[in-house]
């Protein structure tokens, strides 16, 4: 017998049924359908096997120093001098339009200082943020490596301190 359900209905009912998320009425109707539809029955069987297999998939134990490493990075970031654009946006204007205005003024200043003929300026405006982030992150990685070396013995304590 051909299945009366279209593909999407089949899949939606199937997933709901196997994870027991169908409302009781829909579940009953679907059960009745299963008793007469081999195709859907096979799909349910296979979905159950799949579900079981996915349940078997355990994850490895987290590295012990995960938090410590993260907090070290955060601390390093806090201690690192802030890039100019961050300092600017952190400055709390009550009046938001001031930020783009200030930015425009700053860019104009940069332009004036560096003089005309800077064809790469436009390109820099886009790239500057990404570049700075990358630089900061590189610096952080180095600092973190140093930090990891110097605090290797005090690992458990570090987590508590935050």
């Amino acid at each position, binding site marked *: 017998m051909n299945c009366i359900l279209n593909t999407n209905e089949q*899949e939606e009912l199937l997933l709901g049924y196997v994870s027991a998320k169908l409302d009781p009425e829909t579940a009953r109707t679907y059960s009745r359908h299963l008793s007469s539809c081999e195709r859907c029955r096979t799909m349910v069987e296979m979905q159950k*096997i799949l579900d079981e*297999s*996915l349940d078997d*998939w355990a*994850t*490895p134990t987290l590295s012990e120093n995960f938090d410590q490493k993260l907090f070290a990075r955060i601390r390093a970031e806090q201690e690192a001098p802030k890039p100019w654009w961050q300092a600017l946006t952190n400055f709390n204007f009550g009046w938001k339009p001031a930020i783009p205005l200030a930015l425009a003024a700053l860019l104009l200043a940069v332009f004036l200082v560096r003089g005309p003929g800077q064809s790469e300026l436009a390109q820099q405006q886009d790239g500057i943020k990404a570049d700075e982030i990358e630089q900061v992150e590189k610096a952080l990685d180095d600092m973190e490596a140093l930090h990891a070396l110097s605090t290797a013995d005090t690992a458990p304590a570090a987590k508590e301190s*935050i």
Partner: protein
Amino acid sequence: MDNVTSVASIERDAELMLRVRDGDETSFALLLEKHRNSVIHFLYRMVQNQAIAEELAQEVFLRVYRSRQTYEPTAKFTTWLFRITTHLALNHVRDRRKDKLHDSIDEKIEDGAPRQLPTREANVEERLLRDARLGEVRKAIEELPEKQRGAVLMHKYQEMEYSQIAAILGCSESAVKSLLFRAYESLRSSLRQFSPGGNGLKAS
């Protein structure tokens, strides 16, 4: 400022995040404690490599911390968190895929996961069978297009609704359904050889 979302009505996680915004680091530690595992487990299953998963997870929580100043509880916290997480994971998978065009595919899936079988001692045969099944599924998951992969993992292990996955992936609910349906279909067919009937379905 008119508080449309009053602090009382927003969820606990968002409240914690707002405290992080105000400089409270204990709240950040609480958020990390609560969500660390789900983020890492998701990433691990996305990339199937523990070291990479942990590195990406570091990046996720760093970004959470960095975004504290601009954080607004407009979405559920886990939706926001998983938007960051999937963004990084999908990028990583895409980059890897590009690299793989040049490398050979010899580099095998890391086999680091200790498998948890039911404690009641399953007999050896069943163990082997389940191992083999899981092996097939993992391989099939690794072969799924990255969005399908993300959708399936969020649906199965995070038990997220279609609507939340849609909000995370930035697509419609029906798009999520079709991602999921296609993904599950591929995964089921990777297990054809284990079908209980085992009849004639094997070859195709």
